[in-house]
Every structure is written in C-alpha cells, then in structure tokens.
C-alpha cells in the first residue's frame, strides 16, 4: 500500500557497496550540520494493487510469514549497523518515516518497538517528526492510540480516491468514507498531523470524480494532502491492461487539467512541493533539500554527505545479509560536485522556495531568464535571485529543470 512510493522496484547501477557499510570520512564530516532522518521500509502488503511497482511483497510471494514475523528484528539490526557506521558523529534524529509497503500490516507494537530502537540508538531530537504511512483499512482507534502513545506524531493515509469506481480500477480495497473516518480517529488519538494521499488520472475517472475526491479529503480536515498523477508503469497489471488496450492510458492534457483542479481546491492548504500541499512533511523536505538520511529495509535508499547507497531489494536477501553481519548495501555512488549541483536544481526546483540562481551555470541562468519571459518562472522571485516555478511551470517542471541544468 505505498502512497508516496518510498522505495521503487528497480535499483540503479552504481559502485559496489562495502560489506561493512563503512562510509568515507568525508561523508561523515558535516553530519551534525544538516537535518538527519531515518526511513524505515516495510516491504509487505496484503495484496498488490494493479498500478503499483514498488518494492513490496504479498505473503504468498515470500512463501510463508516468517520473514514478516521476524522483520522488525531484522530491521533493528540495520538500525544498529547505521549507528555503528555513523559512529559518534551521529546526531539525534529529526525525522522518522515508516513507509511501505503497508507498515500497518505489522502490529502497532512492532512499529513502536522499531521506533524505540531508533530512539535508543540515536535519540530523537526535540520536536522530531515521526510519520507512519497507514492503510485506512488496517488501523482502528486502538491501533492509532497505540502508535501515538509509542511516539508517532504524524500519520499518512493512502486514500487515493473517494469514488468507488476509481478505487476499483486502482484495486483499492477500502470502502469510500473510511479514510476520512480514519483521519478523524487519528486526530482524536492525538496525532498532530494527518496527511491524505490521492491519485488522479485513473482510467475512467472524470474531472468531477476528482473534484469529489478532493472535497471529501478536505472535509476530513487533513493538515497535508499529496496528489500524484497515476503513472502507468511497465510490468504492472495496469501497464499490461493499457498495453493490451483494455484500459486507456492517462492523457497528459487530462492530467494537466486534474492538476489545475487540485491546485484550485487545495490552495487553502498551500503548495510547498509540486505534488504536496499543506504543512510540509519535514522528512520528505530532507530528500528535496539534500539532507542526510539512512534508509532501513530492502531496497531502501540512503544519503549521507554526498554518498548515496541502496540496499538489496529482496526481503530474503536483506535478512540473510544482516543475519550474517554484512551490510545490506547493494550499490553506492559518491556524488561529484556537478552531480550535486544537478541534484540541487532537480530537487529544489520542485519546492515552493525554489532554487537560488547562483547554483546555475551561464546557460542555465540564461534559460531561467527565458522561462520568466515564457511564464514558467516567477518574475519577482527571479528578481530576488531565485528560480521558482509558476503554476504553469509546475506542470512543465522537468522541461525547466533540463534547461536550467544546461
């Protein structure tokens, strides 16, 4: 039940990662100076949704429940490895994010134990943001209360849509109305922040369906809403249906219209990232601002001080590695100065705060001026030395990034 897709199904190609997981000293140098996050991946789902290509598994794919039952202990081994690798330089954790998969497929006590392990190894910073993704169907008031009591401060529900026909196309099992109800239960349990994730552009969805979903989501009073365009991925059931012509592929123009509808209805929350509105998720901001984080779990990605690495994908391989005392890292890359510059533009441009013009090369600087003229970048922000997307620019963000990185 991944919502924001924390861990994709395929891994990049990189250099081999050392068995010890050790990082170069240079990567550890500035560790305390940037926010530090921990991502915890839970790679299990009750069933696989037709559009999903994330690194998650249903019970039958793993041949029994032992991996799932022992998963928290396995993940805790990696948390300890993280502590050992980062050593004394490790700062207290600012943000924790449990994603999946379907984290709430695990009992609340497991998730709380996992969080406790993080707190025990690193300590939580004052006011730390601790999020879990949750399936509206797999939590109830008791579970939410247990999570809240265990230290979680933020919950993100995979709502996707409020329209039954759309939920069916997406293979979502929850009944309409349940996510909104769950949001209310979360507030009642004392959660400070509640997010609802929505998907637009599913085959058969109309503009009006989408408006309905947005209105229903807003009616639950969330502090945060994510709205993602449905992407038809190769190798998914939806991908096959589209290729065979059983279902139509979402059209870009339709997706553009839906995005504008989202912006219209969500403007009260205020956008802070191309697909996100409301009170920012600090953990995700870490990704976009080049922060440091350790990703725990199969296929999870990490970044510390200019070194990116990723874990082996399969839960079995992951478990075996940690049981043998070996780092689950599958590959890594050390970013060059130019890589980091590209990434800054690529990631920061998606944010409301944009990217400083000072990081651009001359060709990119010229492109920025051109895009102000073309209405894709905000003129006032440009005058203040920043490249910030306009509404139309948000829809063409990738094209702007390509030009700004010239």
């Amino acid at each position, binding site marked *: 039940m991944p919502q*924001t*897709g*924390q*861990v*994709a199904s*395929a891994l*990049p190609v*990189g250099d081999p990662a050392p068995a010890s997981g050790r990082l170069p000293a240079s990567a550890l140098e500035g560790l305390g100076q940037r926010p530090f996050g921990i*991502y915890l991946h839970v790679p299990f789902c009750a069933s696989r949704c037709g559009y999903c290509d994330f690194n998650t598994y249903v019970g039958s794919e793993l041949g029994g429940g032992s991996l799932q039952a022992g998963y928290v202990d396995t993940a805790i081994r990696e948390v300890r490895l993280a502590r050992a690798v980062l050593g004394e330089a490790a700062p207290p954790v600012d943000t924790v994010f449990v*994603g999946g998969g379907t984290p709430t497929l695990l009992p609340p006590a497991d998730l709380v134990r996992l969080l406790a392990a993080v707190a025990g190894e690193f300590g939580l910073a004052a006011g730390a943001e601790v999020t879990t993704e949750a399936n509206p169907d797999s939590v109830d008031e008791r579970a939410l209360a247990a999570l809240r009591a265990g230290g979680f401060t933020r919950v993100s529900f995979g709502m996707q849509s409020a329209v039954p026909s759309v939920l069916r196309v997406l293979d979502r099992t929850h009944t309409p109305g349940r996510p909104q109800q769950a949001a209310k239960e979360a507030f009642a349990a004392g959660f400070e922040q509640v997010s609802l994730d929505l998907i637009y552009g599913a085959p058969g969805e109309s503009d009006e369906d989408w408006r309905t979903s947005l209105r229903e989501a807003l009616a639950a009073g969330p502090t945060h809403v994510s*709205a*993602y*365009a449905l*992407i038809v991925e190769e190798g998914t059931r939806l991908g096959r249906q589209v290729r065979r012509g059983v279902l139509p592929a979402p059209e*870009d*123009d339709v*997706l*553009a219209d839906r*995005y504008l509808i989202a912006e219209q209805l969500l403007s009260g929350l205020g956008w802070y990232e*191309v*697909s996100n509105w409301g009170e920012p998720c600090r953990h*995700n901001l870490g*990704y976009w601002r080049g922060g440091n*984080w350790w*990703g725990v779990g199969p296929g*999870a*990605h*990490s*970044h510390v001080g200019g070194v*990116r690495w*990723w874990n082996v994908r399969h839960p079995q391989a992951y478990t075996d590695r940690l049981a043998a005392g070996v780092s689950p890292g599958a590959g890594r*890359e050390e970013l060059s100065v130019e*890589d980091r510059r*590209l*990434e800054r533009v*690529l*990631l920061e441009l998606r944010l409301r705060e944009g990217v400083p013009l000072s990081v651009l090369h001359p060709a990119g600087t010229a492109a920025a001026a051109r895009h102000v003229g*073309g209405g*894709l970048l905000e003129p006032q922000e440009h005058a203040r030395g920043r490249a910030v997307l306009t509404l139309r620019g*948000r*829809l*063409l*963000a*990738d*094209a702007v*990034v*390509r030009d700004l*990185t*010239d």
Partner: protein
Amino acid sequence: MPVRDWNVPTTDHRPTDVASIRNFCIIAHIDHGKSTLADRMLQLTGVVDARQMRAQYLDKMDIERERGITIKAQNVRLPWTADDGRDYVLHMIDTPGHVDFTYEVSRSLAACEGTLLLVDAAQGIEAQTLANLYLALENDLHIIPVLNKIDLPAAQPDKYAEEIAKIIGCAPEDVLRISAKTGEGVPAVLNTIVRDVPAPTGSVDTPARAMIFDSVYDSYRGVITYVRVFDGQLSTKDRGLMMSTQNAHEILEVGVVSPEMTPTETLSAGEVGYVIPGVKNVRQARVGDTLTTVRNGATTSLGGYRDPRPMVFSGLYPLDGSEYPALREALDKLRLNDAALVYEPETSAALGFGFRVGFLGLLHLEIVRERLEREHGLALISTAPNVVYRVVLESREELVVTNPSDWPTGGKISEIHEPVCKAMVLLPSDYVGTVMELCQARRGILQGMDYLSEDRVELRYVLPMGEIIFDFFDQLKSRTKGYASLDYEMAGEQVADLVKVDILLQGEPVDAFSAIVHRDKAYAYGTGMATKLRELIPRQQFEVPIQAAIGARIIARENIRAIRKDVLAKCYGGDITRKRKLLEKQKEGKKRMKMVGRVEVPQEAFIAALSTGQETAGK
C-alpha cells in the same frame, strides 16, 4: 600480391596476334548469374584453380558482393584452346549492371566485338538487360544469346529462348542453354565466342590509341586504368597522353589481368589490359578517354568520350555536426576513385554544415552513402534527392538549380525546364493497368507497348526524371509484386509547371524540407509533409504552427499544440540517483535535438520525414 601464372603467355615480348584475340562482355541482369559464369570461365581456362576460387571472383568491392551487383567493371584475360584445336586469347570485360552506370556500360561495350546476352531461364529478360542489349546492337556487337540456370526446376528455357529469339532476331535453337553453377554448357559458350565473335582489327604499326573503359584508384599503386588498345602499342618506354585533357604523363606499368595484375612489356592493338599512368586521381584518367603516346601520337581520338554529368543531387549532413571534417575527408577519398562524384559545401539552417552532392542516379547515391557510413563510420542525414532544373527568368537570365534553396523567389520566372528520360518497363501483362496508372500519375507519356511474349510486355514512356527519383522504382515493384523491371536514359528536357513548396515551422522555413514539385502536386506534398511533421515533432512549451507555402501563399497548415504537462509527479522516494540519471538521459536526448528557431526537432523526425517525404509527392 599478384601471383604469376606461367600458363599464361603474358611476358611474351611479341604482341599477341590479333587473329587469335576475342574481346567480349556479358550483359545480364542482377542475379542472372553473370558472376557465376565468369567464375566458371576462370576455372575452366585454368586462370584460377579450384583452391583459389572464391565465389564471384571478379566483384571486388564488399558492397558489390553483398548486393550481388557489379558497380565497377573488371576484366580478365583467358587462354583457351578452342574446339578447332587452336589457342586463343579471350578478354572478358565485366560490365556494371545498373541504369546509373549506362555510360560506363557503353564504354565497356565499345571495348568489345561481341557480347553474351545472359538471361535467367526461370525469369526471362529484364529491362536493364534489354536496354544494354540495345546499346550493344547500336555498337554493332555480335550477340551470343545464353540461357542460364537451366538446372532450376522453375526454368522455362523454351519459352524464354523464343522471347530472346524474337528480340534479337535469331532462331530459338541458336540460344545456348547452360548452367553456370554446374558448368554445363560453359565450354560451348567459350567455343561459340571463338567461332562467332570477330577478331579485332588494328595494327601495331599505327600511332597508339587505347580506350579507357575503367579507372580506379588504388591506395598502394595510385590510379589504374583498364584499357582496350585499338591501334599501335603502349609500353613503359612511352610517355602517355590523355586526348580529352591533353594531359601528358608517365606510363609506369602496363599489363594484363589473369586474374591478378601481371606486368607485360607492351599492350598492343586488339589487347585488353591495364595501364598505370602515374596520375593522381581518376579525374585525370577518365573513363571513355583515349590514351595515346606523346611521341608519334594519334591526332584523332576514338570518340565517344563524355564528361560524367550528375543527374541527381542531395544534401548530405553528418548527424553529429562535429563530424563535418570527417565527412569532407571521406568524400575527398571517395572522389579519388569516382570521377562522377561532385560536391560542394552547403549550410542548412536546419541541418548545419554539410555538402551538396551530385550523383549519376539513385543507386550511385545509395552506394556513396553506404560507403560513407560503412567504410568511414559516419552517421548521415540525406535530404530528399532532386534533379537539375534550368530556370529562365523574365529577364532571360538562366539559372541552373541543383538545390531547392537556390530556387529563384519572386514572380520573375518565365520558364522552367526539367530533365526527362525515356523509360522502359518490362512486366507481366497482368500488371499493365496498374503500371500505366502509376506512369500517368507521374506525368508520363506513353511512347509504345510491345508484347515480348504472350504474357510479357515492354512499356515505353517519357517520364520526368524528377518523378522517377521520387520512389518510382519502389512503387513499381510494390505494384507488380516485384516482377517489373525498369530502365531509363536521359532524353533531354521539357517545360514544366513546377513550384517550390516550403515547409515552415513557427513561420520559419526549414530548408531541408523544401521540395520542387509539379504545381498539381504541391498541395498533396504540403499537406502530407505537414501532417507527418505534426506526428514526428514532439509538443513544445508553446504552440507550433506547421505551414506549407508556395512563396508567400500558405497552402496547408497543421498545429502542434503546446505541451501542458512535462513533470514526473511520482516521487521515487529517496532514489534520487534514478531521478538524476533520468535527467541526464533526457538531457542527452535534448542535445540530439536540432533547433529550428525555438523549436526542438528530433533528428529522427528529420530522418523519418525525409525518407518517407518522397511518397507524398508522388501520390
């Protein structure tokens, strides 16, 4: 390394007696077995033994071997003891088998006294063969008709013997029947050559005159010319003189080919062999020219020399602009060996720096392009080919237009002349209707129609050359399931109502897409091209109008709507590496775009539009 073959009396100091010489060539269609027959003759006469034999010995270039066609003529000297018990020297001259090389064929024919007319017994005569046959008849060559591949189950030797007999006016039983593959009947062919082909005339005592029927550049030996000596003799003691250019030069070596180059003291009247003239490139030793000696030289040439004249022009551009110098170098190299290749630099706003290249015809174009790509590793875009137009302005000034970009603008044109050709199509009678339709659609004028046999027809048309180079041959093949064959020769020019159609992107003309077409087809070309480009060019951040125009008049319009969404809303979570790699890949793609004004046009769009752009004009 040439290997001396002591069976062949090549170092004989005395000139070969003309009475024992027979010079012949083989006229055949592609795939009708010319090379196989030549191979068999080499073996049978002992010039090449079975161990040395490699299939199609005479076709030396890889491209020729692959396509099964001969581009450059080769020649070889064959000793043969005929059935009269006497020894003869046969010179076989291999001829190119394509319409673009008619002139080279004509020079090869002029070097002979007789020719084999080699026809596939399963397929019958083809248009190019027929055209070359007519050429041979004009040259007064003795024709020996031969049906090949009689071992094939599908062979119909009786039917095609009758067809051939009707065409050349002999008796069907005079047509020899052979299998070059098995060797059956090949000795009879050699004996018939000895018996029926006249021996050359000419005397060793007269001033030397030799006709160059092929000229090639060899990177080790320089220019090698293949010649037929008509009068006198040539040796390394002489200084040579090219009569058309009055260019004097050393004679570094003379010799015969059997089948490797073997030096001799002299080459004398009646003989065929090679001369290495000590010149830098093939332009100084041109096919058709008469070679004589500086001292006691001839005063009149053998005649028949013609400057090679390019008929078809196309722009060649490197896909990667930085390869322009490499393209220049490659063309310079090809030019050493190809007197018909002409080119000059040109600049296209859309495609960058390239060359305007002139060719003898479409096959020549294709061969040059392929050699540039294969032998020189270049990736090229070529613009749609065009012919040469003569445009007369109202001021009576005349322009020769080889490039649509040079088409005069403004309304001052008084007359436009386009080249026309006489085309001959041979086809099964079932397809006459559809082929006549095609020819008519291409502004052809029917000149005549003959039945070669009950079910085979020869159609003769006068067609504008410009129509033929617009995928006429492909159309012909597809309409006749491949059964029709085509030959054509230039036949002057005619006045035509032609216009230049420009294609504009966002109001800017894209020179690479301009075409000169008949006024009646301008609309079809314009809409066809505009529609195609709408599909090929990706949506941009702004609306892009595509227009087709004749001068200032817009005749067709399409629109590429502005792209509204170009953002991956999905978040690959912490996998920033993947995001960055995706960006890098997209940027690579962007780099390969050609900018036309502000419009990014993928190279693939240029290639696709140019390669299929031909169809629209013809329909």
